[in-house]
């Protein structure tokens, strides 16, 4: 019997026999430290810059001009040097994870840090958490590549960097882990869980060492005064959900408008957000920046109801404008701000009408934060845990859950596509949604895909198409020109079309939607798509461009993979 060394025993016990796994685990800690330090520097630097730009007792003109100047500078930097550092950072991290094999350049990390520091310090209504996530994921990606890890392992490090960043940015290590799994990976049982937890904890410790044990928000201990309050929290969930939908729809619509503007204006577009913030800030300074100071105040229940209601509306307008115009910054912080204001307004009205039966309006502001987060970001579990971690108060958790789920449900019903997926779609990128990620299990389509398949030109006539079907022994085939997929035609469609089409393009015009799969989809999903569309051939397309075909997957090919003969004769 072979006697194992202590090291071997330890490696066997931990399951980390693969050298890359060992490097990944060590890197998780290093990433935790590096990301923690970087995010703390990012937070502090942004704060210091903001203090310089808005000194205490500063003149009112600053509130008008500083956001304009800040967005002008950061807009130019983003346009000229760091084009990949635009936006919040979450969709970009997901692009990197699902499309770019985990690649985020060091330039993007630096660009995100610099551009966000300038734009956020200038007072635009965006948050620092989303950018922190991209910075964290970027650092993880750079380190992974420098250590020579494979694509798979570098991809696995992205959620590790994300969770470290979020743990430091929000001071919520558990929510950071959940967010990375729930939103970034879309799998709460992902095998990287250990690394994600490790980096989150390390980063959180770094944060504590430097900034001490201060929660992001200081919330007095609230409690449920009367069971009637559950009803009010449910109303808050409805209002929060509707507010979230307004926010998301406005952001997506504005983004489309800005994308329609000439490309030569891209560098100037962020200034639109700066101008709006300047005008808003001139009359209502509280709307400037991410506004955590004011949230802190609202959480103690000290605010006039008219002001908080107005601030909620202003922020719902300001943040989508700043984001859509191409500024660098996230929507996490603004979501919390909007939620706190909506909750504060609802709580204040409830407390005025039913003073003896309701808690301090601050309690509603607190629940409202989670409500808006669940409605906008659509991560209900993360939002509950995040608020719990922020407040460290267990008693508010049940109202929070009720309110969050209602908001989540309303948001899901009225805005089908989650915000990050919808933003990605606008970029022409098809990110896997939460639901579709569940489908990414089993044998991937990529394993069965036939590559080097020629598209059938859209100019061909019916006879040529039929010849192609007979040659390939199939009943459907992808159509397109110059490697640009336009659709899929079925023999049944050709035969039943009245009048008979002159060329395949006529048929495609009649059936513009076509079935497709991505190479990381499982075969079961491909079968499902075949069944739904009534085809036996499905094109495998790029996630970044559904008109770019990598290959096809056929029914016969799938059956053969499972050892099932395609025809009766083969069975014999």
């Amino acid at each position, binding site marked *: 019997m072979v006697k194992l060394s202590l090291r071997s025993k330890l490696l066997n016990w931990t399951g980390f026999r693969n050298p890359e796994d060992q490097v990944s685990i060590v890197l998780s800690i*290093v990433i935790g*430290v*590096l990301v923690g*330090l*970087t995010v*703390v*520097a990012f937070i*502090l*630097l942004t*704060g*210091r810059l903001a*203090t310089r730009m808005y000194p*205490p007792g500063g003149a009112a003109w600053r509130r008008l001009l500083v956001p304009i100047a800040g967005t002008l500078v950061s807009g130019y930097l983003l346009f000229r040097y760091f084009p990949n550092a635009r936006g919040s950072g979450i969709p970009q991290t997901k692009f990197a994870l699902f499309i*770019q*094999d985990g*690649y985020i*350049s060091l330039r993007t990390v630096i660009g995100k840090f610099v551009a966000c520091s300038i734009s956020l310090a200038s007072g635009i209504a965006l948050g620092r958490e989303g950018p922190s996530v991209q910075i964290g994921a970027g650092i993880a990606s750079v*380190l992974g*590549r*420098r*250590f*020579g*890890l*494979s*694509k798979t392992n*570098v991809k696995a490090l992205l959620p590790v960097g994300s969770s470290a960043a979020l743990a430091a940015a929000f001071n919520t290590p558990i929510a950071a882990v959940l967010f990375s799994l729930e939103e970034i990976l879309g799998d709460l049982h992902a095998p990287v869980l250990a690394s994600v937890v490790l980096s989150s904890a390390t980063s959180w410790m770094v944060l504590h060492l*430097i*900034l001490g044990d*201060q929660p992001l928000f*200081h919330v*007095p*201990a*609230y409690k449920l005064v009367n069971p009637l309050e559950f009803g009010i929290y449910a109303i808050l969930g409805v209002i929060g959900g509707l507010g979230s939908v307004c926010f998301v729809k406005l952001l997506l619509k504005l983004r489309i408008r800005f994308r329609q503007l000439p490309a030569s204006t891209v560098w100037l577009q962020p200034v639109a957000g700066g101008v709006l913030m300047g005008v808003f800030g001139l009359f209502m300074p509280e709307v400037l920046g991410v506004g955590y*100071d004011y949230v*802190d*105040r609202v959480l*103690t*229940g*000290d605010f006039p109801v008219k002001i908080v209601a107005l601030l909620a509306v202003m922020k719902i307008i300001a943040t989508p404008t700043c984001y859509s115009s191409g500024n660098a910054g996230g929507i996490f912080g603004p979501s919390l701000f909007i939620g706190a204001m909506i909750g504060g307004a609802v709580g204040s009205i409830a407390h005025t009408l039913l003073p003896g039966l309701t808690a*301090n309006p*601050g309690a509603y502001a607190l629940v409202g934060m989670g409500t808006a987060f669940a409605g906008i970001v659509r991560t209900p579990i993360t939002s509950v845990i995040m608020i719990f971690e922020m407040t460290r108060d267990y008693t508010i958790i049940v109202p929070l859950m009720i309110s969050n789920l209602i908001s989540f449900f309303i948001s899901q019903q009225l805005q089908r596509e989650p915000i990050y997926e919808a933003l990605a779609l606008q970029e022409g990128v098809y990110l896997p949604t939460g639901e579709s990620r569940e489908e990414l299990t089993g044998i991937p389509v990529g394993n069965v895909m036939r590559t080097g398949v020629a598209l059938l030109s859209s100019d061909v006539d019916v006879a040529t198409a039929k010849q192609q079907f007979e040659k390939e022994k199939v009943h459907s085939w992808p159509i397109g020109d110059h490697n640009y997929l336009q659709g899929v035609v079925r023999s049944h469609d050709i035969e039943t079309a009245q009048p008979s089409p002159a060329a395949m393009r006529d048929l495609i015009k009649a059936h513009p939607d076509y079935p497709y799969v991505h190479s990381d989809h499982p075969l079961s999903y491909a079968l499902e798509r075949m069944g739904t569309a009534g085809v036996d051939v499905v094109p495998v397309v790029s996630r970044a461009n559904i008109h770019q075909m990598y290959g096809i997957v056929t029914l016969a090919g799938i059956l053969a993979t499972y050892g099932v003969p395609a025809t009766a004769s083969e069975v014999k």
Partner: protein
Amino acid sequence: MTGANQDFGRRPSTNSLVGLAFIIAFVIVALAFIDSALEKAERRDLESQAQQAHAQGAQLVRQGKLDPAIELLRKAHTLERDNTLYELDLIDALIKTKRSDDAEPLMNEILLHEPDDGRANLSAARLALEKGKSADAISYYHRAIYGDWPQNAPAHRVAARMELVHLLAVEGRKQELLAELLPLEEEAKTNIPIQKELGRLFLVVGSPSRAAEAYRAMIDRNPKDADAHSGLGDAELEMGEYRNARAAFLTALHYKPRDASIQKGLDLSKALTDLDPTPRRLASMEKYRRSIHILQLAYGNLNACLAQHPGVQPADAAQELSTAGDALAAKPPSHANNELSESVLGIAEKTWQARVAVCGATVSRQDEALRLIVEKLAQ
């Protein structure tokens, strides 16, 4: 992407790895240094801003401008969360503006972290008092008295106990009040204003001898203290020592010649000296005359009392009024003896008791002499 793809899976050499490790270590150290420097600068700025806001807020509180003061104090508290002083000042300002609902969560938060903090418990007592929870307030006052005070603890404890004492006095809890006054007498031996207040409160709880003792101690320290002499006069009045009281008021008036309250005390002591039927060497006829005078006063007082409360006419009161009237209507004797005087005083005492039963023990300044003399007779 092609360039990017080349980055993956290229195993670095051992030398490269060592170099990479050094770079990472250097970056970590540099970032830690930058973070620490930024954090220190940030903290310095915040502390300075908070200090400024607190100073301005505290000044506005002193000027009575509470709303703008609260804004500034809140700012100070937000900027420096760990500073309990700022938070407590904010709470106190909120209590003063009757915003106890806003103050309560802040208070709970402090007490959660600092349950033994004297200042926090004192503020909690004020808050409880504002919310009408006097039992809670008393409990918090006790915690404040026996809590931690980082600086000048004895003075703070005495001040906290004084607040408690005033609450007990207002609530009329004489036993508890006396229990607080006794340690206070010891704790604030050299504090003249508190000693004076103590003397007054000893009178409130019905302990004039202790009050007299407190005032005498003050006079020993400062024989020219007019207030102490006046207080001693009040104590002597309560003890029935009218001549001593008169002497004390006269001395007080000597040091504070135009003081109206001392003058009133002197007048009262004079009236009582002239009315008092108990001095040993008083002639029998004079004692009888004084007894009749006391009865007249008591009769008139009860009559006025019944006129003010026409709906309340108990049989006892009518009976006493009638008895007193008969005694007053009787022909005066040619020479009176002690028994006759005592009999008249007995009727006067019962008449007074009937008056107290209908109109309560509270009397006007004019009737103060009658109250004091009857109480002395009852002893």
